[in-house]
């Protein structure tokens, strides 16, 4: 059983991934600056929150309501601004998010909670049936095994991929093969990471190294002890994971469709896109609506995940946060959104040890990125562009060879 703290972190990471993907669709793939994306997250959160509590609707209706509200809001903001073009959308969304925040503060406290926030929203766990005890052992075990295997596979693949990437970069720069050194460097990093933990004393609690964190997350030793809670937790992970995958797949399909290609063409050169017969304004609006709809979904999930939603959490900082996730990962890269969202959501947790300095580190990392890799970690590349694995051969030019 993953402890509640890390459980929440993982949920938030998954929600942030959806949120980041939604902004990436607008900013990365269409080139439209939305500086107030948190406003749509707020609409999503409060939409589903109010729908399920005050109106007493079921969960799916609440989520649909969030999405619908966000689409309507997107039309209201997008219709005039996208028509004008230029930076109007950035300014308007910035203002819009503030308006939403202030309106939420002013709305009746009984339903919307005012400044202290909405507390009585049903948690996602409230919607799950309590599983019968006898059943739990097996399901629990299966989930644990599947999750561990997937996690392990992803880790190994990720490490291999990172090494491959590094090797490629070094090869381009200096020539020759660097795998050997990368492996050694990896070992050194791992050892240091593990030694970095400290033992606890009576007054100071222990600070585990990386391995400690991993153990802390999964607590395999306890895996079989709390069957009922355990399998429910895995179930929620599974549901959220599936939603993330579904959003990912939907956006991918959209980008590969005719309008999706048009969206990218608009980013690349608006006049040329017009010239080629793309209805630029309408397509930008459609894309903005789609992006905001996914932001609404993220908001709805958020409302049913954290115990309390407050207007102040949907302020400018939240918008900047998600902007950073998109920019850091790479504007116009799905993989980048995943990496950006995960790293920026987890970074503060991992850096908790360095206290206030973490904001400095945070900024430093970003400045370094702006200087040396302004396109973000992935640029506009996907994993499949970087690693030519046979079953992933869907890179942008994969078809070209058989033309």
């Amino acid at each position, binding site marked *: 059983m993953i402890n509640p703290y890390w459980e929440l972190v993982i949920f938030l990471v998954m929600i942030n991934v959806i949120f980041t993907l939604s902004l990436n669709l607008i900013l990365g793939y269409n080139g439209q600056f939305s500086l107030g994306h948190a406003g749509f997250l707020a609409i999503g959160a409060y939409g589903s929150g109010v729908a399920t509590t005050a109106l007493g609707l079921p969960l799916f209706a609440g989520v649909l309501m969030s999405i619908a509200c966000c689409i309507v809001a997107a039309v209201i903001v997008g219709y005039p601004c996208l028509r004008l073009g230029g930076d109007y959308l950035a300014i308007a969304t910035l203002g819009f998010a503030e308006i939403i925040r202030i309106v939420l503060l002013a709305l009746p406290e009984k339903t919307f909670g005012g400044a202290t926030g909405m507390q009585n929203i049903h948690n996602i766990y409230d919607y799950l049936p309590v599983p019968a005890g006898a059943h739990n052992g097996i399901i629990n075990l299966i989930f644990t095994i599947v999750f561990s295997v997937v996690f392990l596979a992803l880790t190994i693949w990720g490490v291999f991929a990172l090494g491959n990437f590094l090797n490629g970069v070094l090869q381009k720069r200096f020539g020759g093969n660097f795998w050997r050194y990368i492996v050694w460097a990896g070992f050194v990093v791992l050892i240091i990471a593990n030694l970095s933990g400290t033992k606890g004393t009576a007054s100071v609690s222990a600070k585990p190294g990386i391995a400690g964190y991993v153990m802390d997350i999964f607590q395999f030793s306890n895996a079989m002890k709390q069957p009922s809670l355990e399998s429910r937790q895995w179930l929620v992970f599974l549901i959220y994971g599936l939603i993330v995958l579904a959003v990912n797949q939907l956006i991918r399909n959209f980008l590969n469709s005719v309008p999706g290609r*048009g969206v990218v063409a608009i980013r*690349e050169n608006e*006049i040329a896109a017009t*010239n080629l017969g*793309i*209805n630029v304004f309408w397509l930008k609006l459609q894309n903005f609506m789609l992006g905001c709809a996914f932001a609404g979904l993220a908001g709805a999930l958020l409302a049913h995940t954290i115990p309390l939603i407050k207007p102040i959490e949907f302020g400018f900082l939240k918008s900047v946060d998600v902007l950073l996730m998109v920019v850091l990962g790479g504007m116009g890269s799905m993989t980048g959104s995943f990496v950006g969202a995960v790293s920026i959501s987890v970074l503060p947790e991992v850096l908790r040890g360095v206290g206030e300095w973490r904001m400095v580190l945070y900024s430093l990392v970003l400045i370094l990125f702006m200087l040396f890799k302004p396109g973000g970690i992935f640029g506009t590349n996907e994993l499949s562009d970087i690693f030519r694995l046979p079953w992933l051969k869907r890179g942008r030019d994969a078809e070209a060879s058989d033309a």
Partner: protein
Amino acid sequence: MTDQSGNHHVDEGRKILSVEDLHVAYGAVKALRGISFSVKAGEIVTLIGANGAGKSTTMNCIMGLVKCQAGKIVFLDEDIANMHAFQIVRKGLSLSPEGRRLFLNLSVRENLEIGGLITLDKGKKQELLDEIFQLFPRVKERLTQIAGTLSGGEQQMVAISRAIMQNPDLLLLDEPSLGLAPNLVQEIFEKVQILNSEGKTILMVEQNAFQALRISHRAYCLEHGELNIKGTGAELLANPKIKEAYLGG
């Protein structure tokens, strides 16, 4: 001249585009002051003129990228003046614009695909691609290259190919030879002629008046937003005024 006119398959002589008394102004600047001309099926028609005469304005206005204040643009019996570009493309016009306007960060293949995005279904796409590869073997070679890294001439070929990918009834070319070396200019005009002999109707704007006029069936000379001289390509080549102003005496 018209030595290749025997090759035309389209019902020749039918006017597919006729521009009537077109006025365009950018604020106080009057770019076009009532020009009229027409293009018949199977022709190459060329507009020549000095810098700032209003040639690109004419092309952009036909494509719906620039609004006109008065006049008619009749394409296949329908007035398309001041329609949106996305509507006009669907009616069967496409423009290879001045300065190419490629998607510089995308590959050549992606550029071509976006060209055919709106107007083509899948089978037709491959057919047109094959046609393009035959016309410009260089484009096929460079299919996976990022368009921004192509040489100027290659970019021009891609721009024309991208316009062809829309499978237009009337192809507009705005300065196809812009910035090309003399031998490439020659080559581009040859390609234009081949395209035409395969049945494409072409309206072209050119600075290289001599070569453009040689392959044009008819031509117009635009001066300060007015069409003053018109005739067949050969007539304009022989016109003393044109000779002096555009052909270097």
